[in-house]
């Protein structure tokens, strides 16, 4: 495996840094760095900030849902007269918050953290690579993401505010929306480009730069998950890129890809509309956005698998089955998109097709989740903070997956479509599912990055508080959805007679969401405090087997990752091997 030539380091095992590197300046080292670890940290910190910001938007919305028409306390006056005169939120602003919450959480929070953050920092270490294949592309990827994020944030200042047509930006509503929608499209173009560059880099790195001996069968599950994720990004995002160009063209140049003939908006005939089809947008959007769901989940599954193996002190169950399932899941994720569109006028054949593919894709998901559950059996379970979050992922993702069943069956989808049931379903997948897994990852790899542990007591408080409050937010959504409460209602459904009995849950959910916010403050304090006061640990504090823990703590920046390129002799999960002297054998340990 002659990987080193790509990077410009001498090939071979003994890889001493005898040649002189000019020490890079501060900007080159920490800001415009091409080192995957710096870029990984930049991604992680930026994405965490966006996660908190996106969550803050939701906490504002939850005020309006719990106390419709009442002035927002404390910060209501700061939101501006155009958004919340007298502190009372306007429906226009509510719709902006809704659209931007979704956009920020998915495209600026979870994916950049799961792929850009963990993928960038951990994956090259885990495969024993000195860096990514294309370090400059990697830097470009981060900065494109950063610019996309800034555009999204600034769009709140656009006349009429930010995008307000939902994160799905359905046409023609988005075509006739205020200028914030154009900003949104501009931001998306940057974010998509960033993801595409990242995906190319991840794939080539995993294919080209694995350490000697690290065969496909020895690859940690985390790396498999990142590989499949990258293919999804690479193949699905271009559809949305194209769609965003077409929508921008409709909005700016008067084309009509998505506007049909004969539109009358507010009593005025819409000039120039004609010949387009609004459903084309939905097909292109969901062709990305369904694989995107797996872009969110797969890295989370990868993180959970690593933490579970480490803290049960035994291999994950059914490694080959899991790898097979994750690849199959990747393929299938491209043929389920229209299950988001059952009620757009779909005929019998197409709906039968998409119902069937949706049931088929549930099989590999069930296999992976079952394998993770079965992995616990026979373990010697250590309950540290990363493990608690990783364990919580299992039932939470389970609930999220199972509640997808009635939505994937077109008949049962009729009453449930566009109700709170849908919100409950995908939030169980993404929030207490994926985000918990990402938090587990932060706690788990923190000592690798900083050389210090995060505080366990604060970590456990963070976990228990988050676990309780997040379930109080999302569990009642199933009740409201089954009662027929529609989503995206500015007044939380107050006007409708049939949901009066379940309105009270809005209060519970809103208070729980603010509680969840408070518990995240504990995480923030812990995150920064532990930089200074966390317990100092050696390079492998969790006694883990994979190569990321073979690198020194806080691996040196801009100098490759390993003193000598490690050679791999065994599979990724050498835990509690019978007859071994310790309860773990690192992948790079030579055979005894």
């Amino acid at each position: 495996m002659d990987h080193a030539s790509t990077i410009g380091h001498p090939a071979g095992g003994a890889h001493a840094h005898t040649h002189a590197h000019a020490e890079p300046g501060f900007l080159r080292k920490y800001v415009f760095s091409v080192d995957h670890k710096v870029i990984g940290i930049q991604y992680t910190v930026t994405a965490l900030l966006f996660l908190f910001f996106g969550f803050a938007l939701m906490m504002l919305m939850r005020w309006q849902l719990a106390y419709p028409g009442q002035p927002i306390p404390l910060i209501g006056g700061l939101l501006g007269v155009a958004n919340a005169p007298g502190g009372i939120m306007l429906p226009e602003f509510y719709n902006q918050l809704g659209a931007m919450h979704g956009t920020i959480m998915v495209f600026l929070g979870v994916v950049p953290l799961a792929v850009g953050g963990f993928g960038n920092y951990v994956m090259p270490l885990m495969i024993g690579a000195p860096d990514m294949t294309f370090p400059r592309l990697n830097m470009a990827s981060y900065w494109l993401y950063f610019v996309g994020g800034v555009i999204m944030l600034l769009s709140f200042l656009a006349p009429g505010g930010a995008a307000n047509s939902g994160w799905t930006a359905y046409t023609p509503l988005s075509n006739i929306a205020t200028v914030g929608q154009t900003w949104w499209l501009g931001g998306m173009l940057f974010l998509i480009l960033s993801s595409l560059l990242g995906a190319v880099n991840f794939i080539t790195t995993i294919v080209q730069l694995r350490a000697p001996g690290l065969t496909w069968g020895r690859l940690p599950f985390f790396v498999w998950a990142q590989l499949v994720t990258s293919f999804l990004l690479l193949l699905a995002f271009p559809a949305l890129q194209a769609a965003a160009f077409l929508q921008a063209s409709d909005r700016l140049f008067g084309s009509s890809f998505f506007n049909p003939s004969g539109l009358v908006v507010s009593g005025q005939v819409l000039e120039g509309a004609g010949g387009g089809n609004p459903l084309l947008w939905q097909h292109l959007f969901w062709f990305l956005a369904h694989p995107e769901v797996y872009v969110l989940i797969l890295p989370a599954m990868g993180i959970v698998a690593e933490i579970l193996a480490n803290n049960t002190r035994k291999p994950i169950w059914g490694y080959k089955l899991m790898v097979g399932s994750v690849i199959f899941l990747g393929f299938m994720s491209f043929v389920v998109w229209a299950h988001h569109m059952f009620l757009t006028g779909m005929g019998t054949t197409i709906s039968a097709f998409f119902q069937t593919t949706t049931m088929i894709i549930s099989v590999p998901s069930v296999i992976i989740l079952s394998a993770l559950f079965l992995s616990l059996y026979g373990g010697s379970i250590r309950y540290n903070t990363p493990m608690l979050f990783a364990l919580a992922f299992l039932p939470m993702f389970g609930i999220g997956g199972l509640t997808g069943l009635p939505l994937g069956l077109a008949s049962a989808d009729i009453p449930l479509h566009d109700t709170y049931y849908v919100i409950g379903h995908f939030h169980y997948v993404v929030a207490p599912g994926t985000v918990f897994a990402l938090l587990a990852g932060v706690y788990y790899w923190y000592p690798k990055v900083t050389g210090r542990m995060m505080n366990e007591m604060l970590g456990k408080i963070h976990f228990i508080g988050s676990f309780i409050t997040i379930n109080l937010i999302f569990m009642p959504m199933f009740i409201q959805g089954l009662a027929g409460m529609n989503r995206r209602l500015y007044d939380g459904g107050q006007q409708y007679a049939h949901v009066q009995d379940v309105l009270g849950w809005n209060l519970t959910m809103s208070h729980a969401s603010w509680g969840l916010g408070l518990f995240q403050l504990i995480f923030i304090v812990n995150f920064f405090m532990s930089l200074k006061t966390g317990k100092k640990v050696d390079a492998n504090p969790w006694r883990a087997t994979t190569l990321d823990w073979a690198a020194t703590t806080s691996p040196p920046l801009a100098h490759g990752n390993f003193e000598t390129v490690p050679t791999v002799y065994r599979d990724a999960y050498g835990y509690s091997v019978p007859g071994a002297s310790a309860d773990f054998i690192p992948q790079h340990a030579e055979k005894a």
Partner: protein
Amino acid sequence: MLEWFGLPQGSAHSAEIDYVVDLTHWLMLVLCVGWGLFFVYTLIRFRQGANPVANHHGIKAVWSKYLEGLIVLAEVVLLVVFSIPAYNARVAAFPAEPQSTVVRVVAEQFAWNVHYPGPDGVFGRTDIRLVNTDNPLGLDRSEAAAKDDLFTINEFNMPVDKPVIVHLTSKDVIHSFGLPQMRVKQDAVPGLVHSVWFTPTMTGDWEIACSQLCGLGHYRMRGFYTVQSQADFNAWVQEQRELMAP
């Protein structure tokens, strides 16, 4: 299940839809309880204190394969036996129009225009150039077929126990025509006409709920629908006709 949460089964096909919802939730319950018990058991039994040395090989589970098979079987049954037939009955297999109550529903920001063809059973021609506040549908009044047409805003009445066919479209953006008590929901897409049908079996007054984000007034895009006896419906039609007469 939906009945239990407050949505009566107001149409002939409600029970069939609800049955699929119920079955999937029974499946969920069984899996949640089963895996939940396994989960709790392993968390307690295999904690470090109780099991200091892990077993490298873990569980030798043959039953997990059977369980996987059972879940697949349950999904196949749900899909083939229940869901596909139930959905196909909704979007195909339309009743004959002469034996049904036929209406056009044209959604707009933020109201529902309901268009009845009148005794001749023929909808008058509409043209967007004729749209104004008095004529939200742009109905061409000069045409013979339009003379007896009725239209209402946010008011949709229908006789009970007779199939209803709704030809649905939108003037501006995508809306979604939701009748929760009838288990009816269908997107109203501008430029396209989608038809939906159901047979109301219960009289009552309920609300039409817009179920697709359609702009700042989405939350108040609420209409009313009434299922009534044929006699009451006839009286209502007469009343509307008098209101509309010049």
